[in-house]
């Protein structure tokens, strides 16, 4: 059976695209799928360090697309998670070296060899974005609960619809305490504003910084709340579509918040 190309995109930078790509990719591999994660951020590669594979790079995606090597030569196998592979970006080229046609050719090959190929798109909506979405079967839009990221997500969602791709949304870095206080948009608010289906909700988690520091995939840390959220997202992608979406909740249930909840004063 042919695999799927999934693009992870956001418009705005710094909302957690790379972390999401690495985590969802690793989680899908842990579910028993053959997975390739592809860094499409040419010139600003980072997926390799997030996954802790930076010192094993020989070839990159630009080499593959421009036929300087085979796909198999550029694939870096993760030694901790079976069936997880990385195709790194090139650090010395700029985003214009790839062509949609070339990307489509490589995507075809990826689909024949993997169950999932996840493309980590660069920020922005220019050529790098075009190249990342050109072969996509599905799209995941990542946003955080702040106005700038949601506005950019809306723009990207429009661009994806224009290509007949129906994206799904991951709201990242939710801080339940702030949401409860009314100082942060809740996921319901975000869904009211954007016309898109929800794929998952990821809480703010210090463990993300720690696991990125050491290059260990987040989903391997069992105590990580964000890691657990990404594992559920992966399950939902992988056919368990009726798995309920967990809403991040505040850790401290103080007397006041409990009374407010009882009185039904919070939404």
């Amino acid at each position: 059976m042919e695999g799927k190309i999934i693009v992870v995109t956001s418009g705005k930078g710094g909302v957690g695209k790379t972390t999401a790509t690495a985590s969802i990719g690793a989680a899908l591999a842990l579910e028993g799928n053959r997975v390739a994660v592809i860094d499409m951020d040419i010139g600003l590669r980072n997926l390799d360090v997030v996954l802790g594979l930076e010192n094993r790079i020989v070839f990159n995606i630009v080499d593959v697309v421009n036929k300087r090597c085979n796909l198999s030569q550029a694939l870096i196998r993760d030694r901790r998670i079976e069936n997880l592979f990385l195709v790194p970006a090139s650090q010395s080229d700029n985003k214009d070296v790839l062509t949609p046609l070339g990307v489509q050719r490589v995507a075809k090959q990826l689909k024949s060899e993997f169950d999932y190929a996840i493309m980590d798109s660069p920020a922005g909506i220019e050529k790098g974005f075009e190249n990342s979405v050109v072969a996509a079967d599905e799209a995941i839009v990542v946003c955080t609960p702040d106005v700038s990221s949601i506005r950019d997500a809306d723009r990207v969602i429009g661009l994806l619809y224009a290509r007949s791709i129906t994206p799904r949304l991951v709201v990242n870095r939710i801080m339940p305490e702030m949401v409860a206080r009314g100082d942060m948009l809740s996921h319901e608010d975000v869904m009211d504003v954007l016309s898109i289906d929800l794929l998952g909700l990821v809480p703010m988690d210090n463990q993300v910084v720690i696991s990125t520091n050491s290059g260990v995939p987040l989903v391997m840390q069992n105590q990580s709340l964000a890691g657990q959220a990404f594992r559920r997202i992966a399950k939902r992608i992988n056919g368990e579509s009726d798995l309920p979406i967990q809403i991040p909740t505040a850790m401290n249930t103080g007397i006041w918040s409990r009374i407010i909840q009882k009185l039904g004063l919070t939404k």
Partner: protein
Amino acid sequence: MFNDFIKRFSGKTSSKDTAKKRLQFALVYDKLEINEMTLENLQKDIVEVISRYFEIDTKSLQLEVQREKELSALVFNTPILCVKKNRALKS
């Protein structure tokens, strides 16, 4: 949490409600923005269609988007020099 109560009863809106309102407004406004190229192409097309029926003064025509509080309108203004007679006869 106590602050929350004060906020609730003092009638002050929470910052997230402000954020939501601003966002909804921004998204609507963003979608109404038309780039120069689209406007030029549109003008070319309109002129082409109208020119089949009328002789128009292409130098003094105007195409613009007028924005008001509640709605946006596309306004096309052109002086007609004469109706093309042969066209009317044909039909």
